[in-house]
């Protein structure tokens, strides 16, 4: 058994130590907000916070998440009241929406570290892929969230 703490709740899971955190959360804990996109830490659809750091969990063995605080998209708010969620809605960012859990988690981590990021800082931090090409609106939403926060 491996014990992990996701969104403040402790879970015991019977999985191999090298199973990526993404699949533990999705298939064992049945929390499906975090997505699978590439399996090689390229696209960022699987982004969660591990001890506050935006982490691509499709390559993070669950054993390395033991004893750490794991936060997923499900933890932001139950009513979309988190400033980043509000900004995402105000700028009408999502199209297909599949990458947006990861985008939002990356943005939340950026804003926790850098309250008022410059455009360059946004571009450097936001390397997740969006095939719908919502990049311009993601940028606007981060600026908006930075202004509101």
């Amino acid at each position, binding site marked *: 058994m491996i014990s992990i703490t996701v969104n403040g709740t402790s879970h015991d899971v019977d*999985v*191999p130590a090298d*199973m*990526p955190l993404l*699949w533990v959360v*999705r*298939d*064992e804990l*049945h*929390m*499906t*907000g*975090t*997505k*699978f*996109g*590439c*399996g*090689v830490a*390229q*696209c960022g*659809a699987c982004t969660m916070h591990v001890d506050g750091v935006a982490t691509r969990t499709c390559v993070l063995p669950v054993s390395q998440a033991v004893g750490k605080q794991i936060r*997923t*998209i*499900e933890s*932001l*708010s139950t009513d*979309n009241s988190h400033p980043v*969620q509000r900004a*995402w*809605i105000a700028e*009408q*960012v*999502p*199209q*297909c*929406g*599949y*990458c*947006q*859990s990861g985008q*939002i988690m990356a943005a939340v981590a950026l804003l926790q570290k850098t309250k008022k990021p410059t455009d360059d800082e*946004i*571009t450097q931090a*936001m*390397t*997740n*892929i*969006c*095939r*719908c*090409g*919502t*990049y*311009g*609106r*993601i*940028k606007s939403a981060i600026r908006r969230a930075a202004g509101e926060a």
Partner: protein
Amino acid sequence: MDAPALSRGTFIRLTGATGAGLGLALSFPGCAPSSQSGGKDFSPNAWVRIAPDDTVTVVVNKSEMGQGVSTGLPTLVADELDASMNNVRIQFAPADPKYGDPGLGGDMITGGSTSMPDSWLPLRAAGATARAMLVAAAAKQWGVDPATCTTRDGVVYHQPSNRSASYGSLAATAATLPVPTDVPLKTPDKFTLIGKQGRRLDLTGKVNGTIIYGIDVQVPGMVYAAIARSPVFGGRVKSFDATKAKAVPGVTAVVQVSNGVAVVAKNTWAAFQGKNALQIVWDEGPNAKVSTASLFADAERLAKTHNGEHVAASRGNPDSISGTVVQAVYRGPFLAHATMEPMNATADVRADSCEIWAPNQVQLRARAAAAKGSGLPPESCTIHTTYLGGGFGRRLEADYVQEAAEVSKAIKSPVKVMWTREDDIQHDFYRPMSLNVVRGVLSGGELRSLTHQVVQKSWYRSWWPALVKKGVDPGAMEDVTDAPYAIPNFRATYIDHDHPITAGSWRAPNANWNCFVTESFVDELAHTAGKDPLAFRLALLRHDPRATNALSVAALKAGWGEKQQAGIAQGVAVTLWNGSYGVIVADVSMQDKMPKVHRVVAVVDCGTAVNPDIVVQQAQSATNFGLSAALTGKITIKGGRVEQNNFYDYTVLRMADAPSIEVHVVPSTAKPTGIGEVCTPPIAPAVANAIFRLTGKRVRELPFSDALA
């Protein structure tokens, strides 16, 4: 004002709903109205259903893949119904010919930017008819003339007697009334929602992770599977050893299916690991030596010998014109779709039923695939369409449905078959490679003659054969035969280049390539003629006021002809896609042998913009999608297999390279003509034309990373 998103709970509740309410069955024009069921039941072929709690459920017979159809189509109903969007819910249509699109041969297809134009009248009629019946119900209850009643935000009012009744309270009575025919539709000045800014209905679940894509479907007792497919196109399993795969913790079964070997496991990760551990001997078949080089050599031979060439369009006498001759050959690569959500489907095959949950763009074909995979008749197969994590044409195929049904049947359990990104990149239905030979003749500074030969595999031949007529695939000739230019002497010819690389629809097929040729070559001709490229185009578009207007607006907004910053040049391109016009002006500089696109001005004329911000979203999206492919997109073949694997070698656009995109929507009250694709074709040639102005180098192949290396 977001309506609650369709979560899985809602999904099941809706698909199983039989609550009291007004079920209104309306069919597309040309079909007799279906029977209307009243009282407690609702008709399964209803477009709109009103419940006692005032919710208005609209059945959406198109797939939501980001293009906004699950907001746009309900908007049509709600406007004519005078419903409040806050009360609108949606339900994706089941696979049923009743929901087929007459504009697409009765098939259920989400593609070709056809959803809005094809739904424009029928869904408005559905809303208007429902409204008329609700008004009639209220008038009956109150004993007043229906003409003295008004409606607003889901309520019928009778002002003379100061009475009102919500739609929900009238639903049961309305359901007992006869369905009127030919209810008049609103004139555009009466629209309350159409053309006004309204939020997408799917935002809420897309910012908190609750919206359900195919990958998120969970069925009780479900297991997971991954399939090893032949790396060589057309190859088959010769033999396999599952010993090591079965030794992977969590793997429960290994079964052979028609397209490979499936590893079944307790979770996705174990299935992936088990698949990697399979030892398979493939019969590679006849294609093991096919390569990109061999395919282009074949294409060039076909182009030169004119073997299998068919005339797609012809006017005047293009061979008899004398003047300055310009000739060029353009080469386009294969492209993968790389939707963010890799292919997947969940299947539950029982002795007499097959249930499928899948992100798909083709419900009836998915049902046929389920029937094939399960061995059951189509009528025994149910398709639940989830939200799609991107489509772009890839999900117009249903290969992932058939294989999931096969696996479920073999293991007698519900199963989700999940593709890895590598599976997705290497087993796609690719935008076909293309060889285009163009020849123009200029006389007196005017384009007098143009011939355009296209050598390209036909994907319609297998996907929609009825559309291939006299050897010409119309999809392969988009933006060639129907390029908007008036050229007095013109001939377009087509050669179907048959080869084993699977081909399919890719956003704006295949204008997504042909527009690059047409619009780059028009630029070449303008240069040779010594004309400004925009003025040269305007002269060729004199006959087309909408094209002229879109180009003129683009020139104005982009500051065409004005002095640019040092190192920046502009390029322009125009396209006409299924009735919509798209013009792009790109501001480009060169950085390390690659174009850097700083700013894009996109002008679109798509008739009525039902939801203006979704139109802007789609213009931005389609532009970035085309730019992504133009910069670095290519699938190459070696040894009969795809050389690329994942996002590290099939690279796509990220924020750092995404330009600022300014969209201008031409105001219009014309019938809407679709917006999901029109900006994909013109971005690549607009950038290439700017590159020519900057460097003097004419780009005649894509991606730029190859052409400019």
